């Protein structure tokens, strides 16, 4: 699950999941639910593979969200399905969605960037918790 929280001029995302992979998948949902008003309107018509190298969970969360934001910024891709697998050297992600269609998709926030401020990913009692603030 994820929830958003207040940060004066920006917005925070708090995520909780059973595994780091699931946490990253949830984070993808959270990011795109800020970018588009109704994520349910996004059809799963295109698939993109992403690879991120790294081992530190907080940087993996940061880099993953950053790549997703760039997909939207450069290809205007709205993503609604996220599958993440983790290996020794990093993560592989499979992202499903479709290009922004002005007629069908109402955009919501312009996310300028993912920030490092208060960025955390931790494992507490078998659950993974993550926190990240995005610049609006």
């Amino acid at each position, binding site marked *: 699950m994820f929830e958003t*929280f*207040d940060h004066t*001029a920006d917005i925070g995302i708090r995520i909780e999941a059973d595994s780091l992979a699931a946490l990253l998948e949830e984070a993808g949902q959270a990011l795109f639910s800020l970018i588009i008003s109704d994520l349910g309107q996004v059809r799963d018509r295109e698939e993109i593979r992403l690879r991120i190298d790294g081992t530190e969970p907080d940087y993996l969360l940061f880099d993953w969200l950053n790549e997703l934001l*760039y997909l939207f910024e450069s290809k205007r891709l709205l993503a609604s399905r996220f599958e993440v697998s983790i290996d020794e050297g990093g993560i592989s992600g499979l992202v499903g969605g479709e290009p*922004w269609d002005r007629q069908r998709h109402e955009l919501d926030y312009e996310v300028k960037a993912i920030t490092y401020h208060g960025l955390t990913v931790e494992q507490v009692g078998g659950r993974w918790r993550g926190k990240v603030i995005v610049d*609006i």
Partner: protein
Amino acid sequence: MTANRFNGPLEQVGECSWRIPKSYKDGMRVDGLIYANEALMEIIRNDQAPEQVANVAFLPGIQQASLAMPDIHWGYGFCIGGVCATDPADGGVISPGGVGYDINCGVRLVRSNLFESDVRPQLDRLINQLFRDIPTGVGRGGKYTFDHKELRALMASGPRGLIPRGLATERDIKFTEAHGRIEDAQPVFVSPRALDRGRDQCGTLGSGNHFLEVQLVERIADEEAAKAMGLAEGMVCVMIHSGSRGLGYQVCDDALHSLRGVPAKYGIELPDRQLVCAPIDSDEGQHYLGAMRAAANYAWCNRQLLMWQTREVFARIFNRDWEDLDMQLVYDVAHNIAKFEEHQIDGQRKRVWVHRKGATRAFPPEHPETPQEYAHVGQPVLIPGDMGRASWVLAGQPGSMEKTFGSACHGAGRLMSRKAASRHAQGRQIRDELAKRGIVARSQSRRGLDEEQSDAYKDVDVVVDVVHRAGLAKKVARLRPIGVIKG
């Protein structure tokens, strides 16, 4: 991360200044100093912005104090409304967080020879046309598209490069901070990703707190300065607030990524990762500076193209050339930037990197970088307030050089978070409320207006009053909005 109240020391040291002594935290190299009156200080204490002022004091090479303006609010790493100067000769660092994601976010003011009686009958048409022709909001590309090569050339030249295309004049350049061009920009250091993001965004407003407002000069506070700036009571002006769009965000992001291991490499200890920095003289520092300058020059092109499109809309609605409407640029000034400037520090002239993160340059009269027309009154300092109340034109005063490295506030400062503002707007129609006050507002989303409602901001009059009393900049004119377009 909830906004806990700041419980650290805040000692009042002047009518409008409060000190966080460097003894507060191990690692602070200088004091923190916040400019505010008592009422503002009560608001400022309510979150962790003062803690961020203290954290900035950790930066190597920081001079005098870690400063904050009265519109200070909680940011990430640096507070919004912060100023710090670092000396390369004293191991000083450059920190991308001290500039912000929106490199050279800033404000431009255009005047006209129109008065309210000329504009009021056409106001709906005018605002609708501005909203149609000027791209606002998420995902809107503009009518100007540049390829990578053209973008790199623009980032080297700044808006001067738009003159041959018929999109800028010599006079426009003259009244833009730094003539719209920071020297030694290195467009080759701007990544292909940043170029992709900036390709069709030059001449677009963006979203968040960016806006274009049609305003009236409601009251003149300083006749001489207003006259020098060509402002008169009742005059219609246009204020534009935007920055370097996706290109600048990406330059900042690229820098934060490439600087991840750098503080450890140079033995720099920081209390917050978002303060990541590099010694100015290091390769990493120089790389960021080259790209940051390029993005800053791009932002000046963006505001130039926004102004140009505004002139075209006015010309169409009023059926007269923009020159005939006297739509001249009063000034353009940045409030998210780092500049290499000369300042008097501890009795010595020093060249330092002044980081202004949500702070406006406010150079006093006779400063060599102020246009000659304004030399006797001081550099125009443009302070957007909120879309329902007012904005201000100030003029830089000598106190700014002595106290704040030539800086003043950059706005009213947020009072409510975006989400709180949205809750506060529930059951209300902000657009209708504005209309009742004679303000025509157009926004891509209802939420855009909800989050930017007047109540979400501190009272700009109070903030500006502190800046005036502290001798940083003097009041010149109060402007009242009559039309606004937003993302």
